């Protein structure tokens, strides 16, 4: 029914008593997510919103509540350390929402994360949502999503919402939507998500939303060509972006002649990925793909 997050998700929120953390904690609880614990050092023993116990450390939270997924809303300077803390506490899925983490911090954190066999999503990402089980880990607005069989993976936040909105309004529900983040160094990339969607029996088609910068989309296209049998529809933001300028996201930057939208779109084309010229194109392309593969998206 989904990838990475589902009914088995038991969530601990790092930074639950902070401004961002408390706001989104409420949203996630409201949506239906099993939020079992929060962590704020020094506030161990308190209770958030009269329902969620707060702990001093993630290790305490795991021991007391059996949390198996962590989401991080701590400020940039402590965020990489928070990722490491959750990985060290044995949490297998860590989602880091925080934007603005120094890339050097992530470069140092990644080897530890990998050595523990942990899946990190993000940082600088909106997280993920599985409408079918009403499991939201992050900040993707629940009200624009609906359960269904389209998997979505994206480097962006609001652009994702734009696309999801088109899907939902046109009756194309989602299995899971994953925002992998806009930073140069991220834990989970397109290929990881494509592989998971390919293996998910409840995903029929995949939407991938990339942007300029790096080669993740090109690598993903090669992977699609070789390994993905489900229909894939793709978008690249930043076709009009100038070279050498960081377009908001730290990762969205064209270096020399590498990381351009043209390059990525050419890779999509070569891999048989249907290209969205506009966000709105997603609906028509999926419907066409669905027809040509005998209505996979309409199966329930």
């Amino acid at each position, binding site marked *: 029914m989904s990838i990475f997050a589902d009914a088995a998700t038991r969530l601990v929120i790092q930074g639950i008593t902070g401004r961002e953390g408390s706001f989104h904690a409420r949203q996630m609880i409201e949506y239906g997510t099993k939020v079992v614990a929060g962590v704020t050092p020094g506030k161990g023993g308190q209770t958030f919103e009269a329902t969620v116990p707060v702990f001093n450390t993630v290790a305490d939270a795991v021991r007391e509540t059996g949390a198996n997924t962590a989401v991080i809303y701590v400020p940039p300077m402590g965020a990489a350390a928070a990722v490491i803390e959750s990985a060290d506490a044995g949490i297998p899925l860590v989602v880091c929402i925080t934007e603005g983490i120094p890339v050097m911090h992530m470069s140092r954190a990644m080897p530890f994360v990998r050595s523990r066999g942990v899946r990190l999503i993000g940082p600088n990402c909106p997280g993920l949502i599985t409408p079918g089980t009403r499991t939201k880990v992050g900040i993707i607005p629940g009200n624009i999503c609906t359960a269904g069989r389209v998997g979505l993976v994206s480097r962006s*936040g609001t652009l994702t*919402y734009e696309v999801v909105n088109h899907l939902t309004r046109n009756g194309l529900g989602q299995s899971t939507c994953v925002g992998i983040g806009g930073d140069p160094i991220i834990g989970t990339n397109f290929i990881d998500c494509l592989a998971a969607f390919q293996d998910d029996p409840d995903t029929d088609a995949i939407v991938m939303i990339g942007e300029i910068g790096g080669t993740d989309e090109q690598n993903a296209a090669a992977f699609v060509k070789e390994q993905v049998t489900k229909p894939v529809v793709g978008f690249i933001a930043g076709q009009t972006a100038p070279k050498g*300028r960081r377009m908001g996201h730290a990762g969205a930057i064209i270096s*020399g002649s590498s990381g351009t939208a043209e390059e990525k779109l050419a890779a999509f084309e070569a891999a048989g990925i249907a290209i969205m010229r506009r966000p709105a194109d997603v609906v028509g392309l999926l419907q066409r793909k669905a027809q040509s593969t005998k209505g996979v998206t309409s199966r329930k």
Partner: protein
Amino acid sequence: MNLHEYQARTLLKAVGIPMFDGDVASTPTEAEAIARRIGGTVVIKAQVHAGGRGKAGGVKLARNPAEAADEAAQILGMTIKGLTVHKVLVVPAAEIATESYVGLIMDRETQRPLFMVSSAGGVDIEEVAAKTPEKIVRLPVDPTYGLFPHQALSLAFVLYRDFAQVKAAAGIMEQLHRAFVDNGASLAEINPLVTTPDGRVLALDAKVVIDDNELFWRPDLGVLRDDSAEEPSEAAARRANLSFIKLDGDVGCVVNGAGLAMATMDLVKYYGGEPANFLDIGGSSSPEKVINALKIITADPHVKAILFNIFGGITRTDDVANGIVAATRQFKVNVPVVIRLTGTNEAEAIRILNEVGMPALSDMDEAVQRVVQLARAAA
């Protein structure tokens, strides 16, 4: 954040990398004094964040202090790729035996600092990478362990045969790596790393780019920011915590989220318009941010129409609506504004806008088509 050559020199000197003498000057008199102290022929180099300084006349030889003053007077105040030269670097015109390239970048593929070393130095390394990639030796550094001594040595052996030079270069590799890591750089390069006829190994030109995300907690690096070397509207946006890049078109864009902002620019282009900017007001947008965004965009005389494209997730669309209303009260917006709002608190936002007679759309394509038409009509 790009550093000037003279700033990069300071960072690299601080870790012990041997450099030719030299100093930065803001006036011809200062340049003359530096040239006198150095003695002999010097090179005067414009300090601007632009490539091709040489071709633009921003790099000149001066055989004596008087010439140095003259050349500095020529270069100071000149405009290179739209940027005014406020400072020049004065360095000796060194006698050079060999030129190599040594650079470190934060590589997204390996997620590690990546050394690039080539004995083909002193030229555009991107060109070398494109045409003769085999001339560049690459080595990713595991951030867990740092640069091992044998790695520094093997990189140095790529450049030199003389063991004294190899050892000197290996030391420079370690120092450059330290400067890269300690300053949170995304790029640190020495191009060229030269040998002198008497066998010394020295850095001749240096370039350092600092990861913007480091600046929040590294005020010592933040002070290196040279506002005067930036496009003024971009400097203003940065001070207002807006992610903004000026472009050449006539459709101003105010968007929440970097991906959506890029997609909006692309859609403007798709419908035949030309975006005037990239602008991301971020997630938790206060009315102040909206006001500042409008101020910056309307200051550009080329802007003929403005588009708001807001998808309310965390962003409350009523906040944005309030910001638009407040801005129009503070100053007159002389170009047409098209507003697209959807998501969180959409109804309230539309009510706020309608109260002051501003319409709001909910479809992105429709809004972009509308603003392109308006800009074209105004042109």
